């Protein structure tokens, strides 16, 4: 077995300390009794209580979750379709433009996407609200979904799908019964990615949201600009906890399904 050199151990330790210390401090100080955020005055959960009594935060959280569920679901469907087209459809008119429109939003500055979508919605006469945020989030997160799903589709053995077609499935059945179960882990992680991207978005939502549709990041933004507050520390801790649990659960599920797939393959080999 290889052993890590001192240099490698040092860079891993420093690197992960750099990545995790800021969040760790945030979590520790969310349990601080003092309103002064850098002076420790004993353990307390009062900021969590105050957060849960704050109507504005709760309604913003609810709007954010609704938007995230809707946009990530539509984005997963569209993104999976787009990935399928990119990998399997071969040549068609405007293919370069299509793949360009998939990759460009991944790196496009949010201020430009936000501004351009707002101008579109105003041009169409759409009232700014939950619908416009969902449309905006779907558009950029479907591109992330299609990148995640297409990386799985590339390694997918197409002869399996052809076998299903030979055995009498139509194209949709072949996709649903053969392709989809195999690419499911990528589709699920695409959905999760779209969901967190939507939860997280401040800039695009600032452009396309109306007064009745304040999302959580917009609410956080307006209080963070005034400085560090223990309520925001508490809220951040809750969000970090939810994401951590979600990511660990998702990776355990995909690990288990990988193990099961391996077992299936072994049984198949033995019976063959």
């Amino acid at each position: 077995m290889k052993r890590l050199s001192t240099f490698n151990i040092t860079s891993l330790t420093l690197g992960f300390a750099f990545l995790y210390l800021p969040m760790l401090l945030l979590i520790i100080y969310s349990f601080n009794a003092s309103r002064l955020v850098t002076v420790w005055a004993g353990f307390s959960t009062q900021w969590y209580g105050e957060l849960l009594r704050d109507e504005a935060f709760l309604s913003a959280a609810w709007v954010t979750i609704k938007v995230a569920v809707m946009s990530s679901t539509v984005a997963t469907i569209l993104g999976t379709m787009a990935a399928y087209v990119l990998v399997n459809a071969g040549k068609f008119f405007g293919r370069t433009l299509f793949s360009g429109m998939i990759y460009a939003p991944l790196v496009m500055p949010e201020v430009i996407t936000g501004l351009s979508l707002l101008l579109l919605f105003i041009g169409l006469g759409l009232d700014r609200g939950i619908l416009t945020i969902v449309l905006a989030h779907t558009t950029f997160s479907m591109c992330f979904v299609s990148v995640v799903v297409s990386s799985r589709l590339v390694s997918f053995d197409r002869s399996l799908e052809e076998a299903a077609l030979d055995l009498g499935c139509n194209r949709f059945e072949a996709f649903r019964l053969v392709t989809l179960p195999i690419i499911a882990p990528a589709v699920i992680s695409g959905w999760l990615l779209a969901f967190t991207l939507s939860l997280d978005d401040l800039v695009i939502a600032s452009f396309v949201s109306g007064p009745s549709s304040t999302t959580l990041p917009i609410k956080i933004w307006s209080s963070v600009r005034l400085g560090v507050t223990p309520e925001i520390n508490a809220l951040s801790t809750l969000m970090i906890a939810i994401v951590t649990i979600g990511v660990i659960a998702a990776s355990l599920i995909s690990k288990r399904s990988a193990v099961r797939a391996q077992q299936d393959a072994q049984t198949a080999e033995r019976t063959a």
Partner: protein
Amino acid sequence: MRRFALIAVPYAWLLALFLVPFLIVFKISLSDIALAIPPYTPTVKDGFSALIQGLDFENFVFLTTDDLYYKAYLSSLQIALISTLLTLFVGYPIAYAMARAPQEWRATLMMLVILPFWTSFLIRVYAWIGILSNEGFLNQFLLWTGMISDPLTILNTNTAVYIGIVYTYLPFMILPIYAALERMDDSLIEAAEDLGCSRLTAFWLVTIPLSRNGIIAGCFLVFIPALGEFVIPSLLGGSGTLMIGKVLFEEFFNNRDWPVASAVAVILLLILIIPIVLFQRNQQKQAEAEA
């Protein structure tokens, strides 16, 4: 027919909600400001000929007369470039150590790199306010160790912006480099050493060129979004930190000058087209190499 529908649905969606909006931005950047909603003229309601007639390059000329704008573009380029290099120097050793780690650790290490990326961007930037401020943890720590006698001013300077960009974009740098290094065959290094290279020369002549694609992808993934960054300079930077994303946001929300904001966006997009096209080429080349 079904193939047509499969292509048409995502295609139409992206055309309508990605490409058409850019054309609208371009059109409005050529319009005049008006004190109405929407605050620009002419609009679609005025008919097609009026829509075309009222357009000119006035707003772009305006951008060249006020030196705020070109200073903002230049300083965004500078900040994005320097922080991309810093991210590379911080990220490469981490990616290298991950690729050298025993096989059974790698999945865990990879998850530890990805986890912060799933956590809210806003919160990760916010966390640094409490660390970098004058009474923040960093200054408290440095004062306690006796390394400094007066607190350092870091928050609201460009240094804080660099730290913020390196911190939030680090996973984007680590992952592509790690992916490239992990595929590398160790025997190549051994061969180089057998042939008389020192470890450092072997690293420079073998490891670096083999991880080139990862380095390029990582640098683009940091540089392009950093150039238009808004949240980091607004929260961590000071009044002296000029970045074009911030200028655009303020032009739009505070000055309500939509035509000028659109012109700022058009120029930013023109600057970005080159790195975006290069990035896409690199990705395609890699995808073809893997297939």
